[in-house]
C-alpha cells in the first residue's frame, strides 16, 4: 500500500486529536482554579500536599494539605468525573492551616491543592497518584 497524501492527513488529524485530549482535561481543571482564584496568578511554594505515590484502593486515598498563612485551601482531582474534592476554610482558632482527609480517585491522576493566602496571593502544589483500583462507578 502506498502512503498517500490523504493517509498522511488522516494520521496527522488522529495525532492532533490524541494530543488535544490532555489539554482539554487540563482546561477543565483550570476552570475551577479560575473560579477559586478569580483569575489571579498562582505561584508555587508555601503549600504542601502529602499523598501516597501509589494508592491501591481509589475509594479511600489519605491526603494531607498544609499551607502556613492560608485562609482557604481547595483540593482538585483533575481526573475525576467531578474535579472538586473539598475546600477547607480556616477560622481564627485554627492552630495550623493543616488538614487531613480521605478522598476518592477514579483513576491514576494528578491531584492539585491551591491555597489562598491571607495576603491575597495564591499558591499551588500537585501530586501524581497512581491508582490500582478506581473509586468511582460500580
Amino acid at each position, binding site marked *: 500500500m502506498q502512503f498517500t497524501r490523504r493517509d498522511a492527513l488522516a494520521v496527522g488529524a488522529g495525532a492532533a486529536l490524541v494530543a488535544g485530549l490532555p489539554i482539554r482535561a487540563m482546561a477543565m481543571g483550570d476552570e475551577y482554579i479560575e473560579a477559586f482564584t478569580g483569575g489571579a496568578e498562582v505561584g508555587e511554594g508555601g503549600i504542601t500536599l502529602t499523598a501516597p505515590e501509589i494508592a491501591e484502593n481509589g475509594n479511600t486515598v489519605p491526603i494531607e494539605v498544609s499551607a502556613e498563612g492560608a485562609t482557604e485551601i481547595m483540593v482538585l482531582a483533575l481526573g475525576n468525573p467531578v474535579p472538586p474534592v*473539598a*475546600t*477547607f476554610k480556616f*477560622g481564627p482558632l485554627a492552630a495550623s492551616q493543616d488538614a487531613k*482527609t*480521605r478522598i*476518592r480517585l477514579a483513576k491514576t491522576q494528578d491531584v492539585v491543592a491551591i491555597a489562598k493566602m491571607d495576603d491575597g496571593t495564591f499558591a499551588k502544589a500537585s501530586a501524581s497518584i497512581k491508582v490500582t483500583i478506581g*473509586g*468511582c462507578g460500580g
Partner: protein
Amino acid sequence: MAKGVKPRVKVPKTAQAGGTITIKTLISHKMESGQRKDKEGNIIPRSIINRFTCDFNGQNVIDVTLEPAISTNPFIEFEATVPEAGDFAFTWYDDDGSVYEESKSIAIA
C-alpha cells in the same frame, strides 16, 4: 435523614491555655457520589455530607466544603487552638437537609 449516621469525634479532655490540640472527626455516612449505577443501570442519586464546621465557644475553627470525591465515612483531622475552657461544636450538613451535631468540652490543665 439518611440511615445509620453516627458522628464520632476525638478531642483531648484537657489542654494547656493557648495550646494546640489535634481533633479527629469521622461520621459514618455512605457518601453516595451520584456516579454509581445500580443493577438495572439507573444512576443512584447523590446523597452526601456537603459541609462540615467546627466552632469553639462560638468562634470558627474550620469550615470544610465536601464534594462527592470525599470517601465514605468522611474523616477530617485538623488542629485547633484552645484559648480557654469551653465547648467544641461540630456540625455536619447532609444533602437531604439533615444536620448532625456533636459537642465536646475541654478543660484547661
